[in-house]
C-alpha cells in the first residue's frame, strides 16, 4: 500500500493506509475540483527538482527586432544533461488571434530539445514548427510549444519600464503573467520523443516534467523579451524588479480536452491522486518535535495562503471567491495556532496531532480551504513527496485477464463501479451531450446531441452506461464462463472489460460522474488537472468549461535557481511592494 520504491515497514504502511481517503470520498467531480496545488503538482515538483539540482539556464542568443520578430536560443544544463530551447518570436497580430487552439497567430513558438542544437536543426525547427500537425520535429525533440503575449499587460509593463518606472503591480496582478501558453505537445506528437522512451536517468522522465520545463522557459522568454524590447526603445530603462519577476508566472488556458485526457490516462490520474493522498497521510503521521517546529512551519504556510487569497484580484464566475476562502483559512489558522500553543505548553494528548487537526476541521470549512490545508501539510514531508513524484513514470497500456470467470468480473464491477449503478442514466439520448473534436485544429468541443448530429463520433467515455450494459450481459451469462469466452460472444464489450480488469485493485482513476449529462460541469475536471496536477494558481472559470490561470506564480527566476538562493517555499507569493 505504498508508492515509494522502498516500502515502509508493515506497521508504517498500515498507519499510512489508514490515514488515506477512499475513492468514495474523493472522486466526485466537485470534490476533485477542490484539490489545490501542492508540492506534488507538476510545476511545483519541477521547481523542487530545479532548486535541488541548481539547474543552469543560459541565454545563448537573442536576436529580436523592436516589433518582436526574430529568434532566441537558451541552454539548460541539468546535471550531465543538456537541453536547448530555441525560440521563434513574431510581431503580435490581431488577425486569427484567440486563446483557443483554433487560433492561427502566435507570438512565440519554441521547442525543448535534447543536447546542443546544430544550426541545421535550428533551421529545420524554424521551418517545421509553424506547420504543426504536418510538421516533423528534429531528433531529440521533447516538446513543441507556442504562446501569446497578454497584449494589454505586456504593453503596460513595457510602457512603464520604458518611462523609467516599475510596472503597476495592481494592474499586472489581475492575471499575473506576461505571456500565456497556448499549446504544449510531446510524447510522439509531430515526431517528438515518446515519454516512455526517455532513458532511465533522464531528468525529465517523470510525468509532465518536460511540458513543465517548457512552460517555465516560456516564462523566462516572456520576461527577457519584455526587457529586450524596453531596452531597444530606451537603453537607460531600469530592469524589472526581481520581486516582480518572481511574482509573474506564465499564463495557461485549458478547456474540454482535459476531460478526454482523463478518460485516456486513467493510470496517471490514479497514480497522481494516490501519491498525493500518500503524501498527505505521511504528513498527518508526522510527530512534531518538542519545540513544535513542524506546527510553526504549518502556521507560517497558512498565513502565507491567507495573504495570497486576501490579495487575489482575479475575477471568478462560479468558483469560490478568494476572500471567502481567506475567511475559511482563518478558521484553520486558529486551529493550527491552538495546536501549537497546546503542544508548546506540553499538552500533547494526540498520537497523531496533524491527523487529528485535519479530522477536526473536515466538514467545518470549505472544501477548497480543507484541500489547501492538505496541500500545505505535504510541505512537512518534502523529501518523501519528491520521491513519490520521481516514481511517476506511467505506462498506460491496459491488459485484461481472459481467464477471469464471469462471476469474478461481475463482482469487480459491482464493487469498483458501485457509483455508476446509483446514477440516473435514463436521460433521453436527445438530452445527452456529445464530446467531439472539430476538424479545425482538432479542438475538443461538447454539445447537445441534437445540435451535434448523429454522424459525429462521440469521443467521451460513457463509463457508467458501458459498465451497466456490461453488467446486464454478464448477469445473463454462465457465472463460471471465462472472460475470453464471454467476449467471444459479446465482442462489443472488449474495451470496457479490458479497462475494468486492468484497473482492478485501483480506485482513483475515474471521476464518479455521467459526463454525458447536462448536469455535469466540465470545468470541474479541467480544474483537477490544472490546479491539482499542473499546479496552476488563480484559475478563473469561463462558461463552466474554460479555465485560465497562472503557472510558476512566485517561482524563483533562473539566477535564483543557479545560485542556490531560491526559496523552496516560493508559492503563494505576496504582491511585491515596489
Amino acid at each position, binding site marked *: 500500500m505504498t508508492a515509494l520504491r522502498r516500502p515502509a515497514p508493515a506497521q508504517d504502511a498500515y498507519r499510512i493506509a489508514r490515514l488515506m481517503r477512499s475513492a468514495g470520498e474523493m472522486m466526485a467531480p466537485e470534490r476533485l475540483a477542490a484539490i489545490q496545488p501542492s508540492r506534488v503538482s507538476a510545476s511545483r515538483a519541477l521547481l523542487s527538482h530545479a532548486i535541488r539540482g541548481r539547474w543552469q539556464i543560459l541565454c545563448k542568443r537573442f536576436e529580436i527586432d523592436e516589433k518582436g520578430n526574430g529568434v532566441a536560443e537558451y541552454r539548460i544544463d541539468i546535471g550531465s544533461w543538456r537541453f536547448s530551447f530555441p525560440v521563434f518570436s513574431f510581431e503580435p497580430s490581431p488577425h*486569427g488571434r484567440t486563446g483557443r487552439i483554433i487560433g492561427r497567430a502566435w507570438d512565440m513558438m519554441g521547442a525543448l530539445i535534447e543536447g546542443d542544437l546544430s544550426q541545421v536543426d535550428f533551421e529545420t525547427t524554424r521551418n517545421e514548427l509553424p506547420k504543426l500537425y504536418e510538421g516533423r520535429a528534429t531528433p531529440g525533440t521533447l516538446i513543441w510549444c507556442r504562446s501569446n503575449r497578454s497584449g494589454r499587460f505586456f504593453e503596460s509593463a513595457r510602457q512603464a519600464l520604458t518611462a523609467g518606472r516599475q510596472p503597476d503591480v495592481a494592474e499586472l496582478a489581475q492575471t499575473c503573467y506576461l505571456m500565456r501558453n497556448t499549446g504544449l505537445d510531446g510524447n*510522439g506528437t509531430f515526431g517528438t520523443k*515518446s515519454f516512455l522512451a526517455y532513458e532511465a536517468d533522464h531528468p525529465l522522465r517523470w510525468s509532465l516534467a518536460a511540458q513543465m520545463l517548457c512552460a517555465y522557459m516560456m516564462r523566462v522568454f516572456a520576461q527577457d523579451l519584455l526587457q529586450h524590447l524596453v531596452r531597444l526603445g530606451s537603453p537607460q530603462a531600469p530592469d524589472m524588479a526581481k520581486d516582480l519577476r518572481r511574482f509573474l508566472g506564465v499564463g495557461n488556458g485549458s478547456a474540454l480536452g482535459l476531460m478526454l485526457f482523463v478518460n485516456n490516462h486513467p493510470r496517471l490520474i490514479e497514480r497522481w491522486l494516490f501519491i498525493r493522498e500518500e503524501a498527505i497521510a505521511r504528513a498527518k503521521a508526522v510527530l512534531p518535535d518538542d519545540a513544535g517546529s513542524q506546527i510553526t512551519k504549518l502556521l507560517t504556510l497558512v498565513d502565507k495562503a491567507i495573504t495570497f487569497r486576501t490579495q487575489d484580484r482575479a475575477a471568478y464566475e462560479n468558483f469560490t471567491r478568494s476572500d471567502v476562502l481567506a475567511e475559511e483559512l482563518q478558521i484553520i489558522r486558529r486551529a493550527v495556532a491552538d495546536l501549537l500553543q497546546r503542544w508548546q505548553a506540553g499538552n500533547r494528548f494526540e498520537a497523531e496531532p496533524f491527523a487529528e487537526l485535519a479530522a477536526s476541521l473536515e466538514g467545518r470549512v470549505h472544501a477548497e480551504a480543507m484541500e489547501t490545508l492538505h496541500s500545505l501539510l505535504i510541505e512537512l514531508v518534502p523529501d518523501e513527496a519528491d520521491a513519490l513524484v520521481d516514481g511517476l513514470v506511467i505506462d498506460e497500456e491496459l491488459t485484461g485477464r481472459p481467464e477471469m470467470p464471469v462471476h469474478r468480473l461481475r463482482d469487480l464491477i459491482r464493487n469498483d463501479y458501485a457509483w455508476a449503478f446509483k446514477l440516473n442514466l435514463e436521460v433521453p439520448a436527445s438530452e445527452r451531450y456529445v464530446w467531439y473534436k472539430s476538424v479545425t485544429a482538432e*479542438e475538443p*468541443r461538447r454539445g447537445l446531441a441534437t445540435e451535434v448530429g448523429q454522424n459525429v*463520433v462521440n469521443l467521451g467515455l460513457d463509463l457508467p452506461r458501458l459498465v451497466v450494459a456490461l453488467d446486464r450481459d454478464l448477469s445473463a451469462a454462465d457465472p463460471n464462463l471465462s472472460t475470453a469466452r464471454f467476449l467471444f460472444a459479446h465482442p*462489443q464489450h472488449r474495451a470496457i472489460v479490458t479497462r475494468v480488469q486492468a484497473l482492478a485493485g485501483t480506485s482513483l482513476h475515474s471521476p464518479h460522474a455521467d459526463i454525458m449529462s447536462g448536469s455535469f460541469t466540465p470545468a470541474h475536471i479541467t480544474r483537477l488537472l490544472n490546479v491539482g496536477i499542473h499546479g496552476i494558481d488563480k484559475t478563473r472559470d469561463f462558461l463552466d468549461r474554460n479555465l485560465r490561470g497562472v503557472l510558476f506564480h512566485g517561482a524563483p527566476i533562473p539566477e535564483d535557481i543557479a545560485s542556490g538562493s531560491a526559496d523552496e517555499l516560493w508559492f503563494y507569493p505576496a504582491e511585491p511592494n515596489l
Partner: protein
Amino acid sequence: MSTCQSNLATSMTVSLREMRMVFERLLQVTRIESGLVPALRDCAVYSAALGGFARLPATLETISKATPSALSLEGSDDPVIHCGGQHAWLAADAALELAVEILKTGGRGIVTVRNAADIGELRVIEALAQRFGLKAIVAVGADRATIAVTPATDPDDIALLDKIRRDGVDVDAALWWELYHRSAEALAPDSYLSRRHAGPIIVEADGKVIGRQDEDETDFSLLLADAPNSAVSAKH
C-alpha cells in the same frame, strides 16, 4: 537520444502515439462497434510495425464491411474459431484471449482459426501476446492458422512495444499523409454552431458576447464565419 523524426522526403518515421491516433480515427470512420476499436487499432499498429503498413487501406476497407457476430467457436480444450470469411483482425484478440485462458487454466494454450480473410494478418497475435508476458507462435496455412502461446523466457520476446516507442515505425511518407488526412473524417466539420460548443466566450451572430472578456483578445472573425446573418465579421 533516439527519437521519431522526419528523415528522407519519401519516407518518414512515425511514433506509436501518432499511429494509434490515426488508426483509431480510421477505424472510427469504418463505423465498426466502438468497443472493438482499441483492439483493432492495436492490430493495425502491430501489422504496420511488422511490415504491413501498405496493406492498411485495403484492410480498413474490409473492416468497414465486417460482421463481427459471424465468428463462431467450436470445442473447449482445443478450440477452433470459424471466421466465416471475416478479416483476421476480428479473430486476433479472441483467439489470443482463448489461448491465454487455456494456458492459465492448465491447458496447452493452442487455438485454431479457420476461414479468415487475409489469414496471414493473424501474425499480429505474436505481437499482441507480448502484453501478457507470453510468446505466441502463429503457424499459417492455406485456410487455417494455429496459435500457440507459452510463457516468454527471453526479454526480447516481449520487447516489440518498447522498440516501437523508442524507434517508431518507418513508413512511406505519401502513404502516411494519405492515411493522416483520411483519418480527419472522424473529426466533426467546423461550423458557427460547433464553434459555440467550446471557448471562454460565445459570440452571437449579431455580435453580442456571452461570457466575460477579461484578458480575451479573440479575433471574432474566427468565431463568426458562416454565422447566420452575421453582422460582425471583423475584430471586435
